[in-house]
């Protein structure tokens, strides 16, 4: 079943057109990977979904409802969580405060909290510490934990492996695999190796347009296509 549809989305940032024509269908369940070179428009795509940039023309449809005119806060309340590239953790707040802020009621659901402890034990260890003092990996864990502290239908994650140590990347992959059993993930990545291990469906964005869509298995097998769409020299 289709969860999210982007229809001929065109986004301008100030006077520059960043997205020219992004049309994409994200099915419910699993991890959908959006690949692309630097500056291809991956982050802009996610921000346009969240209503942080406004696509025009074009629209974003979530569960059959057009959400492209909604305020970012309303988009979030429809059940979409966002983990930006810079992680967006609040450095002056403790881990506990970061998480409790993301709850609807201001109280933790014990079951969900325990699940987060299981996924990221480090967060329990540093529970009362201010987030600025955490390592990059721990901040990333916190950002992901914040996205799943409430039940969500879709999580947008922007380059979560950037600058992380290999061992942490593996742990992150395990966490994503588990989260994706209950929640759809739209993952933007440059780290193809990481993306390959997770994605079921995928798309490649290039110069503001969707250049390829298909299954991850096919794409992983097609070395020529990978070179054409992802290598820096192309």
């Amino acid at each position, binding site marked *: 079943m289709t969860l999210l549809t982007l229809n001929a989305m065109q986004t301008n940032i100030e006077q520059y057109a960043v997205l020219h024509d992004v049309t994409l269908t994200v099915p419910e369940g699993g991890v959908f990977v959006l690949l692309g070179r630097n500056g291809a428009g991956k982050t802009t795509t996610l921000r346009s979904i969240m209503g*942080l940039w406004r696509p025009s023309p074009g629209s974003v449809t979530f569960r059959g409802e057009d959400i492209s005119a909604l*305020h970012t*806060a309303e988009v*979030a309340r429809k059940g979409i969580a966002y983990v930006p590239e810079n992680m*967006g953790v*609040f*450095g*002056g707040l403790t881990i506990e405060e970061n998480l409790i*802020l993301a709850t609807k009621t201001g109280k933790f659901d014990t079951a969900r909290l325990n699940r987060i402890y299981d996924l990221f034990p480090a967060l329990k260890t540093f529970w009362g510490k201010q987030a600025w003092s955490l390592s990059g990996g721990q901040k990333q864990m916190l950002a992901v934990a914040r996205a799943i502290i409430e039940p969500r239908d879709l999580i947008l994650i922007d380059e979560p492996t950037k600058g992380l140590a290999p061992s942490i990347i593996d742990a992150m992959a395990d966490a994503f695999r588990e989260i994706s059993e209950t929640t759809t993930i739209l993952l933007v990545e440059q780290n193809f190796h990481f993306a390959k291990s997770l994605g079921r469906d995928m798309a490649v964005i290039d110069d503001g347009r969707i250049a390829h869509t298909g299954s991850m298995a096919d794409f992983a097998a097609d070395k020529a296509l990978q070179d054409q769409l992802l290598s820096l020299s192309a």
Partner: protein
Amino acid sequence: MKNLTQILARMGGVNLLPVAVAAVAFVLIGVPSSWVTLTVAGLAMGMMIFLMASGLSLVFGLMDVLNFGHSAFVSLGAFVAASVLTWLAGWLGADSIFLNVMALFLALTAALIVGLAGGWFFETVIIRPVYKDHLRQILITMGALIVAEQLILAVWGGTPMAVPRPQFLEGAIILGDVSIEIYRIFAFLLGLAVYVALYLTLNRTRIGLLIRAGVENREMVEALGFRIDRLFIGVFMLGSALATLGGAMWAGYETLISPSLGAEMMIVVFIVVIIGGLGSIEGTLLGAIMVGLVGNYVGFLMPKMALASNMILMMAILMWRPSGLRPAVK
């Protein structure tokens, strides 16, 4: 050396600055009784300036909006409170402490209400259309300041206005050879109470949590599902009300006010938020106390330098820490 910095940091870091200033002043002044009087005056002044500056700093931190019209609220508060006090002069002179307190309470409440209403108007009518456009924001709020100042002139006239004080706040407490004005103690305590209330709201409540998070990263708070613009109206109104309260307290402190009061205080308020670091209540308090203390000490030691002292203080601190003593984490 490294150990020393660590020890200082553990003892409170930049928070020790006012203590250090007070200690240096103690040596330079040499007369303990004068030093106590000046320190109390500096603290009281600092607390009133804190009231005026805290709103400006919070609003900037949360919304990246600097309201150059903020000082209009200071004047407005001073004149509204002065008018109410003049109107209730009979209660002020009465022997009943209840009537005294009621008159003061009504004056401060009137100032607060005017601040809340004015803040609402300012935010929705003046500033809402120019979010995110710094240049126009500066120009528009500056224009609003001009208009507001002219309106105050039109209503209250250009001549200085005497401000009656409640009976129970007149006079001084004498301890040995030290004399401390009661009004200063009152101003200090009121400022402290507001600071504590703000601190608790920011650190112990959900709204406060949202504000602190919003100061750091507004977009992310919205992406978590909260309408920060609605929160902002509230903060803006609160900030304006604190400015009117500060103005009202200042009116009682000066006992003679003129419409240029707002413009004069604006400079001090700006220096305070620059010194303290924009966006943090703790920084604003620290900056206000520093300005209050240094102003009073220098005024006593080198009267000619009193005005330049704020500027020198600001320059020195900016050279040491370009974003102020305790800026909000960004």
